[in-house]
């Protein structure tokens, strides 16, 4: 296998060394036919960290309802999915833990000071223009300090209005329906106000009764049941204004976002208990704005501001258990200024300062009512030589925490570095070698610090250290049958230290959080994208990913399960997408997801062993334009072979399911 790998790289280089005329600066892996809208970048991209991107119509054709579904087609991530439309879905990048994943929406990070996790199942693909994954960080200098502050990041870019010709108004009305009693109508309205300003409103309502069949069997018992209390009702409304100056030197936008939902929490399926009554309500609101100005050839400014207000109510009405009705309220204020200095054509530097203020209220007994001031200062520079690009930054994090009751966690100051390098050995080959080193940490969350009984205010930050070497190759697009091809492969070693873990105290109800764990991760990510023109009017696109991860628990030296694989990280996982496109009207998409064997607990013993699971999805789309109206219809079958599996044990995933959608654009 290794032999073949080496051969492939050699072959790639030899065959295509002289094809390229220009350096491919985008280097993103776009699932094709979609033009990568460069949207006139004010700075050239610096492709020095591993990145994966899904864009535009590719996203729409992908048998995916939420951003979480789409993330499954990236290498190097594990999606934790509690099943169903309303089930919690979080992403763990390269086994470092969900809390080290930064999620950005239109360039500004989505926060959750309470538990440090963002539920990607809440973000519909309906209004998404692009979803991207960056290991380490997005390798641009010109970003808020928060952009440097995560071990890995997901960037979601919502749709921006684009008007062609004399079109002033664009409306899209869409209806999706299918299994789980899904009804998902959405309306998008985009209006050009003048040459420089456009407005958009996007709204989506999701209802699903969430019922689906699941099956558990050990070969002797074999039971099929229906998932109960997995219903969801959600309403999303987004409104935005986008503007730019006629010169193109200034861009700005304002966005208001509201998401309100009620859902059932169907719970774990255990012996004798096949349904649970818990409910959850979420109201998320934010208002954010971004302003970018190229003030001179030498200096550019990027300002970002945000206010977010999040409300969660959790109800456990079960009178046979502990009746619980709690609300959690969080607020966040955020302001960022980033400055980019172009000192010479090959040398840039930036300075970014972010200020953030978080508060949390909860009607828990003995709650501390914490508030946290975070200041982030980032100094970064990039030197771009003919074959070599080097980027480095230092990030200073200064946290000041206060509590109204009990004792607070006090203050923390940390300075952490990142170094990225990319080397292109041959001119115009499309081959790039790259490497990065990054050390970063996450702060203990409010839950880690203050959750009644469990929290521990003595916690220190949890660190990750990443070493990555990789190679990427892009065959430039050509008009031959083999239109484009790109492949990237990375090998990495990550270490998580001072990992915040729960340890027991006097009894099962009493845990506390401490900085104890250590995880060593060795991994390989590979992904390859290509597109072909098989016949005139018949295109083929493929996308393949493969991930290998060895993530060992190094916490207790000399104990029985030292060096065992950490829970829910498969050694092997991967995905494949094959799409056929005919006459730009018909699209047939096949996707395959594979998750290999893994363990549900940190003891790698037979009773904790989980068999692999894999799903096959199919979709057929038809798109037709009549004058200015474009109609799109699609039908999907997901999990075609009706495989029953759990991502998280006792949280069953749906078997075969269907979805239909129809959209009219005018």
């Amino acid at each position, binding site marked *: 296998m290794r032999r073949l790998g080496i051969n492939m790289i050699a072959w790639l280089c030899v065959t295509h060394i002289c094809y390229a005329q220009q350096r491919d600066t985008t280097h993103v892996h776009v699932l094709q036919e979609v033009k990568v809208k460069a949207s006139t970048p004010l700075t050239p991209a610096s492709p020095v960290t591993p990145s994966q991107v899904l864009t535009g119509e590719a996203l729409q054709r992908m048998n995916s309802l939420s951003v979480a579904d789409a993330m499954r087609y990236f290498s190097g991530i594990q999606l934790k999915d509690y099943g169903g439309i309303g089930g919690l879905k979080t992403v763990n990048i390269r086994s470092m833990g969900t809390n080290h994943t930064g999620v950005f929406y239109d360039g500004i990070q989505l926060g959750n000071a309470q538990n440090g996790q963002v539920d990607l199942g809440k973000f519909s693909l309906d209004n998404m223009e692009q979803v991207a994954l960056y290991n380490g960080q997005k390798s641009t200098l010109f970003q808020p300090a928060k952009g440097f502050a995560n071990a890995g990041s997901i960037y979601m870019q919502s749709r921006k209005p684009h008007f062609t010709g004399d079109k002033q108004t664009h409306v899209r009305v869409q209806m999706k329906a299918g299994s789980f009693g899904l009804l998902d109508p959405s309306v998008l309205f985009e209006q050009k106000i003048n040459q420089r300003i456009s407005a958009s409103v996007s709204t989506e309502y999701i209802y699903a009764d969430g019922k689906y069949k699941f099956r558990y069997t050990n070969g002797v018992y074999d*039971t099929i049941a229906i998932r109960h209390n997995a219903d969801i009702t959600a309403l999303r409304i987004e409104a935005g204004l986008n503007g730019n100056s006629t010169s193109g030197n200034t861009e700005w936008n304002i966005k208001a976002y509201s998401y309100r939902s009620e859902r059932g929490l169907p719970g774990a399926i255990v012996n*004798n208990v096949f349904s649970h009554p818990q409910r959850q309500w979420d109201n998320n609101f934010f208002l954010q704005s971004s302003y970018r100005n190229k003030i001179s050839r030498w200096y550019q400014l990027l300002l970002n501001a945000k206010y977010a207000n999040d409300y969660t109510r959790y109800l456990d009405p079960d009178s046979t258990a502990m009746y619980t009705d709690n609300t959690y309220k969080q607020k966040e204020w955020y302001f960022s200024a980033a400055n980019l200095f172009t000192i010479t054509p090959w040398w840039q530097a930036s300075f970014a300062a972010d200020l953030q203020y978080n508060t949390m209220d909860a009607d828990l007994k003995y709650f501390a009512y914490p508030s946290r001031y975070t200041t982030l200062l980032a100094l970064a520079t990039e030197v771009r030589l003919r074959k070599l690009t080097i980027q480095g930054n230092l990030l200073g994090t200064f946290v000041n925490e206060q509590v109204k009751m009990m004792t607070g966690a006090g203050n923390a100051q940390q300075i952490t570095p990142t170094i990225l390098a990319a080397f292109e050995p041959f001119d115009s080959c499309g081959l790039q070698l790259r490497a990065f080193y990054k050390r970063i940490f996450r702060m203990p969350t409010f839950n880690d610090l203050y959750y009644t009984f469990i929290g521990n205010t003595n916690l220190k930050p949890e660190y990750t250290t990443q070493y990555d070497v990789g190679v990427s190759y892009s065959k430039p697009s050509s008009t031959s049958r083999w239109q484009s091809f790109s492949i990237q492969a990375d090998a990495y070693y990550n270490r998580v230290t001072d990992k915040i873990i729960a340890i027991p105290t006097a009894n099962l109800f009493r845990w506390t959080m401490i900085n104890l764990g250590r995880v060593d991760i060795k991994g390989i990510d590979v992904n*390859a994208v290509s597109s072909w023109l098989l016949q005139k009017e018949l295109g083929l696109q493929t996308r393949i990913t493969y991930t290998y991860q060895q993530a060992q628990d190094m916490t207790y030296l000399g104990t029985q399960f030292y060096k065992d694989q950490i829970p829910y990280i498969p050694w092997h996982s991967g995905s*494949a997408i094959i799409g056929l496109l005919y006459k730009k009207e018909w699209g047939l998409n096949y996707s395959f997801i594979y998750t290999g064997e893994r363990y549900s607990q940190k003891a790698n013993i*037979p009773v904790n062993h989980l068999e692999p699971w894999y799903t096959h999805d199919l979709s057929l789309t038809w798109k037709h334009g009549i004058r200015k109206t474009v109609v799109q219809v699609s039908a999907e079958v997901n999990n075609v072979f009706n495989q029953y599996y759990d991502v998280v044990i006792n949280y069953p995933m749906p078997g075969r399911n269907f979805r239909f959608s129809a959209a009219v654009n005018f």
Partner: protein
Amino acid sequence: MSSHMCRFLLFLLFTSSMVACRKDPAVSPSDEEYVDKPDTLPSSYAGFYVLNEGNMGSNKASIDFYNYNTGVYKRNIYSEANPDVVKELGDVGNDIQVYGSKAYAVINMSNKVEVFDAYTIKRIGQIEVPNCRYVTFYKGKAYVSSYAGYVGDPASPLGYVAEIDTASLKITRTATVGYQPEEMEIVKGKLYVANSGGYRYPNYDRTVSVIDLATFKETKKIDVAINLDRIKKDAYGDLYVTSRGDYFDIGSKLFIIDTKTDKVKDSLPIAASNLAIQGDSAYIYSVEWNNTAGGNTISYAIVNVKTESIVTRNFITDGTDKQIQIPYGLLINPLTHDIYIADAKDYVTPGTLYCFDKTGKLKWRVTTGDIPGHFALLRN
């Protein structure tokens, strides 16, 4: 073109060769290990069961068995003996007892008491008791405590005790007790129930309910201390009751109730998480979180129940106590006075069972299921 396609297919093959397919579903396997030489003298005990709680939501409650006649410790025996039980034994085991030829496993989050043949492990049936905690027996009846009563504020109901006929496995009567009742003990036709009020912190319950078994009504409440948990009788008509404290300012403590007066007659300045009384000795271990030290304080004490005084504060005499992370279960062999301590470790990995001789020296240790906590001796 064709060579490109070929290489592409090779790449597909390369990736697919890494993947393996699912195996057919299988019964959760048992495994066993030889840990000690078999008993040579005839003993009245065949062995003992260990109930492993398993983490909440994991559905990994499991039963192990140590066989005195063979010296073999066998893990996870229930699933193999009863492969047709849907979703195995259940979620969070909380108590196991043998009465007659039947064994009773109280499975808390599965809302049931599982009844199986104590010698063949074959399932006999189950009794539905929501949020059940402990079981005890008297004259052909089983008594099961439950958090899930129907009396009082629906958001904070009182607990109850269910009386079950051990022949028909049907609930015959129920009696309302205090909040979140835990362990029970029977003395002279009266059932004493330790009430915790754990769902109501900081307003814990602080009473022991007394139920007259003839009428099956709560006749009185004995005020003891907050957050009661364990209750064990000695041979002198006294009950030893543990209070868990509030985990902040009030520490854990051991109280003594005189059943002749049904009043607290004494308390001992000793933290107590669990205890087992054998003859005149009460073996007590305790785990308390110490905020200033940032760690657990663990002790293993013996109290003489005749003199009501502390005999030792560490009955493990060979230093093995330093290896035990979280003592979570305790059994004393009535004949040999061997001491068995279950270590739940970090609650997310298999635990360890330690066997000490009566002088407190380690005889052997063996790996158990997740969170071992409860024992039941089986007669030959």
